């Protein structure tokens, strides 16, 4: 079953078309990374799913149930962490989580257990002072705890690691990763390393629609593809080597000048091995062989047109 299905979602703010035609599917019990440049519409999408904003068209289903603006039934399956969570400053974290538990319909006994667990997991154990004294990082941790209270089936996190130090970031990613088998997680981020670390699937939002949606392994394959720069000692050697390499599948010469040529290959590692072998067979020494790999960042920049 799909945990989250979005079909033809549209949203505009006055003259700005934030989301034009978004289709998205998030499998159950997976971790989905939601990428996009600033202003792409990630936060808007999450707010529409949680019923905080009204869409201009399209449909959203959460575990097969329609999610509509102003209706709260589906919200009870969702835990939401906004990018800058705000709480009641006069409460302590336990009190706020208790409030959330009551809203979620959790029994007091179960709430006490969950709160104790979550406070320890997010690293707020022993902090009994009021939320108004918390740093941004501490509020972010509390935000994660409140998103998890009530055992929601779907967690939407809007940049959950943005305000955290490196240690905090790793802890949060670990928390989200550990939820994998029980809960579906959708989180938006700019930190591509976080995506690589824990996501099963990635969607890149650009120009109001999903420009790319792939599994992380497919993305990593893409990032293994790239270019190879080869430099020989003379032009004859270059031509001779190119003629032989031209017989092999999967190579595409993109630049060819003087003693240097660039090849595009799906798998640069394999390609480098093939080039070395071919050069050895022809007894042609190579002055330089360099793999210019496409990182995930390069993939992202390419997809978002930057």
């Amino acid at each position, binding site marked *: 079953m799909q945990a989250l299905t979005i079909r033809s979602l549209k949203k505009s703010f006055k003259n700005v078309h934030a989301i034009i035609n978004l289709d998205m599917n998030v499998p159950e019990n997976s971790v989905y990374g939601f990428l996009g440049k600033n202003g792409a519409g990630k936060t808007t999408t999450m*707010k529409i799913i949680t019923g905080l904003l009204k869409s201009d068209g399209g449909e959203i289903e959460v575990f097969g149930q329609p999610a509509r603006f102003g209706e709260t039934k589906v*919200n009870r399956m969702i835990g939401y962490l906004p990018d800058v969570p705000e*709480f*009641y400053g*006069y409460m302590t974290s336990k009190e706020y989580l208790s409030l*959330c538990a009551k809203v979620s319909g959790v029994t007091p006994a179960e709430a006490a257990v969950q709160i104790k667990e979550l406070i320890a997991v997010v690293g707020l154990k022993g902090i009994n002072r009021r939320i108004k004294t918390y740093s941004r990082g501490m509020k972010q941790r509390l935000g994660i705890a409140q998103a998890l209270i009530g055992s929601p089936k779907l967690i939407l996190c809007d940049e959950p690691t943005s305000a955290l130090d490196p240690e905090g970031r790793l802890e949060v990613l670990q928390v989200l990763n550990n939820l994998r088998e029980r809960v579906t997680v959708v989180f938006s981020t700019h930190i591509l390393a976080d995506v690589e670390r824990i996501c099963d699937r990635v969607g890149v939002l650009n120009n109001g629609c999903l420009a790319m949606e792939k599994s992380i392994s497919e993305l990593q394959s893409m990032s293994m593809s790239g270019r190879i720069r080869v430099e020989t000692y003379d032009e004859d050697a270059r031509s001779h080597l190119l003629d032989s390499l031209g017989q092999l599948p999967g190579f595409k010469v993109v630049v060819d000048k003087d003693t240097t040529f660039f090849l595009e290959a799906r798998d640069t590692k394999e390609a480098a091995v093939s080039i070395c072998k071919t050069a050895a067979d022809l007894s042609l020494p190579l002055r330089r062989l360099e793999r210019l790999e496409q990182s995930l960042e390069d993939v992202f920049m390419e997809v978002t047109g930057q």
Partner: protein
Amino acid sequence: MRYFSVFMHKEMVELWRTSKALIVAIVFLALSIMSVLLAIFTPVIMQSVFEMTPGMSGETQTWPEATAVDSYAQFFSNIGQMGLLMIIIMFGAGLVREKRQGTAALLTARGLPRWVVALGKLTTGVGVWTVAYLLAFGVCLACTVFYFPDDPVDHMVLSVTGMWLYGIMLLCVGFVLSTIFKSSGGPVGIPIALLFLLPILDFWKTTAKFSPNWLFTNSVTLLGGTVAPRDALAPFLVTLAICLLSVCLGVFLFKENEL
């Protein structure tokens, strides 16, 4: 109703922890006691001022003795202006604050019905106004009866209820404005403006008969028996209608608000 009681519990904690309840109680009690004292000492003060005025020292002037009606008049004047001003400023834009801070968004995203948040904030304002008003009136009543034991007044309940309903109306207007405006300016400024501009409607006899302001300006004349209670029916009904309409409209609009 479960959600409503959970939210109201949160509101009670907020009132206590932010000291709003204490501040309102202290101010209202002070206004109440001040009203009685002002009524008692106004003739004395006027006499002293008269005697100190140059050229008047040899003259005699009789000032009417203070009565219970004077005490209640001061009460309604002070509570109806300063007290209501305070209530509107502190509670008139409660919903706007929840929206702006994002605290409402987090709870509604979790499944808290929007009508609970809306009515909860209104109920808090109405509750504080009611309790503070009754507390202040209780003190005023006790002091007035103590200082003016043989001075009964007419139509006390009607008079007190009228002023109370007037305050409720201003809070309800602030409530519906909270669902329209994005900042506190409108929900606080417009009811305050109404507090001072509604009396202008009294210039036209037709509107004066139905204006909610009648409840404010005639709270004292009712006590003195110079105005008939049946004249209060029309403004009561109009004020009640404004309250109900504002509440229904406010809840409907908040359901449509994007958070």
